[in-house]
């Protein structure tokens, strides 16, 4: 890689050992991908929780702190594995909960803004078109690239932190124009109503085309999708397809037309998605949702409008005895929802609302599953339906209204 004078100084350790180690790591990664240079970034978003990083990762953070490491870029944190208000109720391991506290302390000492959200793009920072950032959590990346037209690769925790400390990231992948062109065409020939439908499209397109560098181009969308709908589509494409970008003609900024989305590339193939494909997908989750004792609205965290909708659906109803309904959101959204009455409505219905976490990364989830006798998990999130299988849950994807109907007793109008 060609380094600037400042980058050379970093590499020589003139800006401290933490920055030296950070840029060394970034250079090795950049060289793997054939990056020729670094690009300056304005924002970093990193995953850092004890469930994923373990004792080794926590030790690493502590060493970076001891070396005097400091983020020079605005840096936010992704959802974590403990909501401290509910750790005891969920019977999370007190020792691990203590470690999560430590992780947060280390991150704050490193000048990280610990907002603990995977919907930073809805609630914390919205980069503009062409802005280079270093974001982790695949859902944030695909949203940044596709909907904002900003530029980022999937950046795992340690390299996102490195980028935050050096203020730059190697220019490969989605920082470069050549990787942002469409690779295949998806004709949508159906109406999409629910978040689950949008996520389902992500599964239908992502699963058979699994490739980080594959960029689907959607046409035929019948109306302007909302931010939450694009979020479910993106999260599912990233989850099932490991994809980091999509175009939607007439909707996303780098796809004013089909030609605009593909530039000089020819689509490798064309997919057409109809109602029958969607129906078959739902039918593929064979189990009946009604006999499940676990319903989860998470992955990504719920926005204020998703919470509003859930509050409307749960109003006046009661969660069935012996059934658990979990909603996860960010600290900020929960605080906003409180005075609006959404939290009270949901809690009165018996819904458990967790903040600053995402369901699938909850500390102690495998044991929680066994202790609570959970097996089948019903959700409106296609991403969750994919990812949760690692924890031996049996997922069922259903539309939001169907989830609520199956989880509750019929409402008693007051």
């Amino acid at each position, binding site marked *: 890689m060609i380094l600037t004078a400042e980058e050379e100084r970093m590499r020589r350790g003139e800006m401290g050992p933490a920055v030296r180690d950070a840029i060394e*790591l970034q250079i*090795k*990664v950049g060289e*793997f*991908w*054939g990056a020729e240079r670094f690009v300056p970034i304005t924002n970093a978003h990193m*995953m*850092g929780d004890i469930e*994923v*990083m*373990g*004792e*080794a*990762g926590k030790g*690493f953070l502590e060493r970076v702190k001891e070396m005097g490491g400091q983020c020079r870029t605005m840096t936010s944190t*992704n959802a974590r594995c403990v909501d401290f208000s509910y750790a005891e109720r969920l019977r999370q391991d007190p020792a691990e909960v203590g470690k999560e506290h430590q992780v947060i302390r280390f991150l704050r000492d490193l000048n990280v803004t610990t907002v603990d959200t995977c919907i930073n793009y809805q609630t914390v920072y919205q980069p503009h078109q062409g802005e280079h950032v270093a974001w*982790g*959590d*695949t859902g944030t990346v695909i949203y940044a690239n596709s909907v904002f037209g900003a530029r980022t*690769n*999937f*950046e*795992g*925790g*340690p*390299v*996102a932190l490195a980028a935050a400390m050096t203020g730059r990231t190697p220019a*490969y*992948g989605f920082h470069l124009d050549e990787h942002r062109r469409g690779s295949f065409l998806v004709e949508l020939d159906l109406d999409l109503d629910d978040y689950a439908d949008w996520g389902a499209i992500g599964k239908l397109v992502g699963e058979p085309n*699994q*490739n*980080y*560098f594959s960029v689907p181009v959607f046409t035929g969308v019948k109306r302007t999708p909302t931010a939450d709908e694009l979020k479910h589509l993106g999260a599912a494409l*990233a*989850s099932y397809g*490991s994809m*980091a970008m999509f175009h939607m003609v007439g909707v996303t900024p780098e796809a004013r037309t089909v030609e605009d989305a593909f530039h000089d590339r020819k689509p490798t193939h064309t997919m057409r998605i109809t109602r029958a494909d969607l129906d078959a997908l739902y039918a593929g989750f064979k189990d009946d949702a009604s006999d499940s004792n676990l319903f989860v609205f998470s992955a990504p965290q719920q926005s204020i409008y998703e919470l509003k909708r859930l509050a409307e659906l749960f109003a006046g109803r009661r969660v069935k005895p012996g059934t658990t309904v979990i909603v996860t959101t960010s600290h900020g959204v929960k605080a906003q929802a409180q005075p609006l009455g959404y939290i009270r409505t949901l809690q009165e219905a018996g819904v458990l609302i967790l903040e600053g976490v995402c369901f699938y990364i909850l500390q102690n989830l495998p044991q929680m599953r066994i202790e609570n006798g959970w097996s089948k998990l019903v959700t409106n999130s296609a991403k969750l339906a*994919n*990812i949760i*299988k*690692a924890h*031996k849950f049996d997922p069922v994807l259903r539309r939001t209204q169907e989830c609520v109907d199956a989880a509750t007793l019929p409402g008693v109008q007051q």
Partner: protein
Amino acid sequence: MSETIRVNRAFGEVVEGVAVVSEEGFSPRYDLDRWSGEISRPGHKLEGINIKDKILFFPTAKGGIAAGWAFYDIKHKGIAPKAFVFGVTNPVMVQGAVFANITITDGWSREPSEIIRTGDIVRVNPQEKTIELVRRGEGVA
């Protein structure tokens, strides 16, 4: 025809070990029990296989940001593989492997299953960008 595969990109030290050839992609978040090192997702083509000290061949990378920390974590727990060999990988797998100092490669000149079977002993040479069959194994990992 020589028993060598050329790879497009590579990082890490030369390693030799038992091959595990998967028809299915991989994610440490989706597929792996990060305490035992076992592929845990029900229905994964490698379900029940332990990745410790193996040389793992995967056609694709799935998901996820988790590999960034997870590879470092499994390395410190002593359950890391010796190398990841991907047909198509994603940046996080590479970032995670580099951070944990685990050998990783991307892209292959021919399907590994044409010459390598699970259980064979193979050598990955990142400097030469080659993977060689060292000797035939028992067919089990």
